[in-house]
């Protein structure tokens, strides 16, 4: 049977069934790019997660703890940041909280710890001096105040806007952890 051929640019072309199939299996270039980044991020997180089994959550704000883990694991946290579109780690807002929480969840940090240490990161963004004061209150040889209580003491001084933003941060973190199962 003579196959009908379409002439394009003076050249014979592939049969329709073959063109249809090739077009069906083509994937967007953006998918390849994003999935490569995601795959690298997963590898970096796996290394950090393994490191975490040797170094449990330290007395640090979340960003500093994550950086420390990455350093100990010998991987670049920036690979995770670029895959998850998180430009900065050292401040937490309602927009960045779900991403930060996702990284923390994947690394294996429990939700309650993530929440507490994100509060600390938030405080650091609002007032780094007060954040440092937490260390004196809750850690060190003479410290008697648990970290969560120490944080609450500092948070009571937040403006209404800051308190509302922190509430949104906490809500976003809880939502992220609720998806874990």
């Amino acid at each position, binding site marked *: *049977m003579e196959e009908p051929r379409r002439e394009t640019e003076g050249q014979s072309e592939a049969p329709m069934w073959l063109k249809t199939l090739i077009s069906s299996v083509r994937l967007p270039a953006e998918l390849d790019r994003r999935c490569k980044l995601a795959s690298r991020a997963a590898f970096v997180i796996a290394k950090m997660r393994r490191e975490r089994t040797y170094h449990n959550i330290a007395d640090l704000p979340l960003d500093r703890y994550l950086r420390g883990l990455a350093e100990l694991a010998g991987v670049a946290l920036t690979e995770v940041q670029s895959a998850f579109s998180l430009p900065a780690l050292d401040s937490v807002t309602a927009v960045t909280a779900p991403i930060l929480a996702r990284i923390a969840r994947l690394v294996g940090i429990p939700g309650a710890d993530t929440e507490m240490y994100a509060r600390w990161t938030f405080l650091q963004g609002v007032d780094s001096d007060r954040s440092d004061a937490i260390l004196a209150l809750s850690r060190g040889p003479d410290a008697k105040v648990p970290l969560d209580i120490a944080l609450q003491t500092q948070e009571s001084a937040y403006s209404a806007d800051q308190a509302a933003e922190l509430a949104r941060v906490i809500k976003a973190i809880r939502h992220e952890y609720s998806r874990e199962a």
Partner: protein
Amino acid sequence: MDADEDGQRFERSLPERLRVGEESAFEEFRTRYSGSFYRYFVRRGLPEADAIDLSANCVADIALKVRDHFPADHPSFEAWVNLLRQRAALDWWRQQNRFPTVRLSPNIETSQEEEEFESEPVEFSAVRDALDSLDAIDRDLLLLRHGGQVEESFAEIAEDLSRRYGREFKESSLRQRHARALTKVERRLRLDPRMAHVLKKAEGEGEAAPDTENRNYGRTP
């Protein structure tokens, strides 16, 4: 090694390698599943950008879930991955509809209808295998020429490939390359049993000539 043996070996080793955090395992997981995630999400009605987002999320999240959540005695890694992929799509739709996220039982049964929906046409894997048998330039060339909604001209493809590979491609040589690659792919597909029903249908519609020997995809006689 035949395909079944290959599949068995894959099913045994990839989860184990992911569990211990082997770098190449994450890459293999991506290569194997990113396309199927994307196609599944698109078939599920997600817009392209969201399907890409969700596919990338699944590539990271599912690979990382293996260590703690994939049971060592699970009969099929493939089925487990598909279940998580299905949950990701359901979750996405719930968020769009502002429904609360519901925890699904880990023992959730996949309905026959869903199984059928999930399974990709066999000819897709035949085409992917045929394309994979080409070298990267030939593969890109065929995908650029026939992969989009609108065919790119050889001049456009020459520009694109020159950018990608950092060397100059001439339109005339690409035409020859294209013809050879297309012949190779078609010949391979005609011998592939997974293509039988497609070829039969095409023949019924008077489209598929049985011999590729006499086909000339624009090559200079």
